C-alpha cells in the first residue's frame, strides 16, 4: 500500500535504539530509509501516512523519539501530526507518546 508502513514487516520486528551507531534497526535508520520518503510521498498525494506499530517485540523510547522528532523537525509538528495516522492496537498508549515526541520537536527548536 502506498501510504502505509507496518514497522514489523517493512522494517524490523525488533526495532533498535536511537542512532545507527547504537546497533541495527535504529530510529535513525528507520527515519532515513523509510519514514522520511513515505511521509514526503504522503504530503504530495495529500493522503495521511498510516504507521502500524503492532507486531514488533516492543519499542525503545529512543527509537520512537529519534524517528518522530526528526520528522517533526524537518516538516513541522502540526503538519506531521495532521498527516500521520498511528495504529497501535497492542500498545495504545504509544500514540500519545509519539504525539509528545512530535510536539517536543517544536518546543525545543
Amino acid at each position, binding site marked *: 500500500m502506498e501510504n502505509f508502513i507496518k514497522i514489523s514487516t517493512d522494517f524490523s520486528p*525488533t*526495532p*533498535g*535504539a*536511537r*542512532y545507527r*551507531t*547504537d*546497533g*541495527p534497526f535504529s530510529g535513525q535508520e528507520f527515519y532515513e530509509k523509510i519514514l522520511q520518503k513515505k511521509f514526503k510521498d504522503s504530503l504530495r498525494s495529500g493522503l495521511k501516512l498510516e504507521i502500524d506499530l503492532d507486531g514488533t*517485540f*516492543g*519499542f*525503545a*523510547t*529512543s527509537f520512537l*523519539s529519534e524517528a518522530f522528532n526528526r520528522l517533526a523537525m524537518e516538516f513541522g509538528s502540526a503538519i506531521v501530526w495532521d498527516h500521520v495516522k498511528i495504529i497501535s492496537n*497492542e*500498545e*495504545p*498508549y504509544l500514540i500519545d507518546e509519539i504525539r509528545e515526541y512530535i510536539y517536543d520537536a517544536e518546543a525545543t527548536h
Partner: protein
Amino acid sequence: MTQKRHIRFSHVFSFSIGAIVSTVCNNWTYFKFNEEINIDDLFTAVIGGAIGLYIGSKLTSKVSSDRVEKDLIIGKITSIKAKMEELTSIVETGSYQLATATKLIKYCRQSATLLKNMIEVCCGDEEIIAGNLDKITKALNRINPIVTGGLAVNGILNIDVIAIGNYNTFNKIIEDNSLLLIINVNRL
C-alpha cells in the same frame, strides 16, 4: 475430574445418611408422626424449601464467579510481578540486550492496560484499587525511558548506577502497589 467425583460421592453419602436417619426416626417409638398430611403445610414446606435452595444456589454461584474474576486479576498482577523481576535481574547487571528489555516492558505495560479494563469491569469504581493500578502504570511509564532510552552498542545497552537507582525507586513502587492491589482485590 477428581472434584466432580468428590461432589458425586458427597451427594451419595448425604443421601445415604438422610435415608438412615429417616428410617431410624420412623421405627423409633420416641417419634410419633401424625399420618394425616395437611396439603397447605406440605405446599408451604415444599415452596419454602424450593426458595431456600434457589437462594442458596444463586449465592453459591455469585461467590464462585466473583472468585474466578479475582483469581484472573490476581493472576495478571502476578505475571507483571514475574516479568518485572526478570527485568530487574538484567537491569541490575548494568549491561543487557535492548530487545530483551523492550520485550519485557511491552509485556508489562500491555498487561497493566488489560488489568485496568479488567478492574473496571469486575470492580467498578473502587478508588483504592484504581489508585494502586494508577501508581503501577505511572511507574512503568517512568521505567520505560530509563531502561530503553539510553545509548546502545551493537544492541547492548549500558546504564549507569544513577539510572539503576532510579529504576529501583520506580520498581519499588510497582512491587508495593502490586502487593496492595492483590490484598485490596481479595478483600472485595
